[in-house]
């Protein structure tokens, strides 16, 4: 799994945002609540928020650098 992740990320370092966002979301949410369902629900939302925010920033930068 580690090798495939490295291989995937070797093509573009941006892919590392997924495992990092996943880990941060899960650990942060786990430190906020005790119930597993609530942790998972909250972690999922946080993960989507982080990745969504990154995607928006990525899209804006891509648009700004269009034909540069």
């Amino acid at each position, binding site marked *: 799994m580690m090798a495939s992740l*490295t291989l995937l990320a070797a093509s573009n370092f941006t892919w590392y945002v997924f495992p990092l966002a996943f880990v*941060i979301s899960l*650990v942060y949410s786990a430190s*906020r609540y*005790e119930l597993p369902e609530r942790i998972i629900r909250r972690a999922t939302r946080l993960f989507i928020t982080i990745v969504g925010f990154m995607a928006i920033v990525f899209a804006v930068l891509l648009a700004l650098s269009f034909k540069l």
Partner: protein
Amino acid sequence: MGLLIDKSMTDPRVKLKNPVVAAVLGYLIPGAGHWYQGRYFKAAIYTVCILGTFFYGMHLGNWKTVYYKWTGRSKTIGFFAQIGVGLPAMGALIQHKRYDAPQDPFHANHRIEKESSLGEKLEAPFKGRVRFAGEDAVRDIEGQLTLVQDGGEMSWEVNGSLKGTIDGKEPIELELGDPVEVGPQIFASENISFQYLRLEEDPVQDQFASDRRYVMCHVHEKGEAHEYEVAIIEGTVPRAFWDYYQVPIEDDAEQHLNRILGKQMELALVFTWIAGLLNLLAVWDAYEGPAYGYGDEPTEEEAKKKQSESHASKTKEPEAAAAEA
């Protein structure tokens, strides 16, 4: 998303046992405090996520991401984030001490420099090349190398032997002596390129290795009156894992690492920093319990919905009463 909870108290349903013990355990090994408290789901999250991130960062940086160095311009400030992960990063502090302490006589900058460590011995399987005097050919040699430092406090020399085979078949026993060059025992990454017995097909770039230690010796033969140098051997012997893991890295090896890994090295550092910082959340959770509450409290949205529903029912009640009247 805000929440309606009382932050001043830990939920009584969360059994913290001895919070100080849990916090210390949680600091030393991510998730250990929660295993101790019996909070297995969270323990699994912390252990897998934090240790996974930390060791994946180590893997990305060729296991050279975590070390402690505080000299001149070379300061590893990021180590203060990495140390948050506890025991897995603490080896760097021990290695920093070992690295700075006087090492065995076969130490430092490829030269034996210390005079006082008498009787020290280096015994290890050697792999390398040999060239005999008067010959142009460089041949492969393998065998058991023994080097011993002899002499008094004022004068000292290194003697030894190599018993092995040349080109994998011809058995040979060589008497070794000065000049001798041996790589340091405790070293993160060492340049092990051939300097004396270089071949044309060898790569132009310097070759670095952690688990190999550079050795160069001259081969002596006793004549009737004198000792003659008859050959030179150059190669490597193994370096133990604990003699390179989390050891402070030298500038040239660091530059080499940055050259071959590029941005990946920075990313590797980020992974280990994040792991250390995340463990602080886990430690606090082990000590104080979850920050927002147990998890069955209504969210702000749910509370608002409930409030508006009760408000609506309250406003409906007088209307209904008025209608009835």
